[in-house]
């Protein structure tokens, strides 16, 4: 099970210039806010896909649920 710190560093490594805030009560459900200039000009669905794609294969497995908010910086 990934820690909040691990999820944060994977997002920040996967999306250049991103900063992430991650909260998890149980290391299975995650509340994530990501701010990135890379989101500029993308629809929200594309912003979410950028983040979700980093965890493809784990959603529904090690990560049960990831509630996501994105902001353009």
């Amino acid at each position, binding site marked *: 099970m990934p820690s909040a710190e691990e999820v944060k560093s994977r997002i920040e490594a996967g999306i250049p210039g991103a900063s992430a805030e991650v909260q998890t009560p149980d290391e299975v*459900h995650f509340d994530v806010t990501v701010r990135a200039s890379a989101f500029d000009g993308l*629809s*929200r*669905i594309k912003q*979410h896909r950028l983040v979700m794609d980093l965890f493809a294969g784990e959603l*529904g497995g090690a990560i*049960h*649920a990831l509630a996501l*908010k994105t902001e353009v910086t």
Partner: protein
Amino acid sequence: MSDNEIRTLIAKAIDDNETILFMKGSPDSPACGFSARTVAMLQSLETPFAAVDILPDPRIRQELSAISNWPTIPQLFHKGELIGGCDIITEMYDNGELASALGTEAPEGAVAAAASPAPAAPMGIENRLGS
């Protein structure tokens, strides 16, 4: 009906309806808190939308997610494009983007009302990723 026929019908429904919501249950009787919240936001914008219940046959969800490449329900489409699921719709509703994305005027007070949303439904794993 084959999986392929189901997929074709879903694609046609997305093409034929300017705004269409795939959800659990119906707008009058939603079967999941996330679907219920999404319906309530669309109704408060007074935007007409078609709704499809994905529960009667598991292949509807399977083929829908194959088309949209999006794992969770609900899914809102406008003019053939996936707008988002409950999280994205909530965020867009709160900041007024949803009304402009759907080409409707936000009713007076809708954004203010959204600042104190109704209590969220219990976080059910099955609502996000399951079945």
